[in-house]
């Protein structure tokens, strides 16, 4: 089961209900194709770091999606077609999250077995650095 993060920026001029209509549409599209939205995160209006299509601000929306990946193509198409969406980005997150879990687990076991961190012991290195300085 793959997890995705879809983030998109809507123009500051878009009406509240227009944006809600889009998110419900996306929700429908995803559930139709066997996926599901685990969480919707509305960051709201934010200042952009640089001008996009003459706008200085944008409304950020973030969708956490769990699914097979087939529904993502449709979501992307919708976002591309909707004209008040000025930028969007889809990221597949399950691989990186799995690796993060694995590294955390590895660190725990190595902590248990060898008493030191996986790669190095922080205070040990700090002392080394002190010796080097003086």
């Amino acid at each position: 089961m793959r997890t995705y993060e879809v983030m998109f920026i809507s123009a500051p001029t878009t009406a509240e209900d227009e944006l809600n209509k889009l998110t419900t549409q996306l929700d429908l599209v995803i559930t139709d194709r066997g996926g599901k939205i685990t969480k919707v995160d509305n960051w709201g209006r934010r200042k952009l770091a640089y001008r996009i299509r003459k706008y200085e601000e944008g409304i950020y929306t973030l969708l956490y999606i769990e699914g097979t990946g087939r529904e993502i193509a449709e979501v992307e198409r919708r976002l591309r077609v909707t004209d008040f969406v000025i930028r969007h980005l889809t990221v597949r997150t399950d691989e990186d999250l799995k690796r993060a879990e694995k590294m955390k687990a590895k660190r725990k076991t190595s902590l248990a077995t060898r008493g030191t961190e996986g790669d190095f012991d922080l205070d040990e290195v700090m002392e080394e650095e002190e010796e080097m300085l003086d």
Partner: protein
Amino acid sequence: MPRNSEFESDDRNGKTQRAPRTATRRRRVSRLSAEKIDYVDYKDMKLLQSFIAENGKIMPRRLTGVTAWQQRKLSEAIKRARSLALLPYTKY
């Protein structure tokens, strides 16, 4: 002016001319490993901010001291943040 230590020599016009000192290889601690951060999130502006230079450029590994793998993940996240206008491409 303290006496020159042994590897400095006075040349003709009395200016102390230091032997070229190789930059001591100070082993930098990778901040990402130190703080046990395994997943570099492109939305985490605060974390990414500390890895970009004053002008908005991505800091090189020799300054950040992170491992090659971590540097790749970092630059990937920074570029994603930039495309979403969370981080600027350049700050002048």
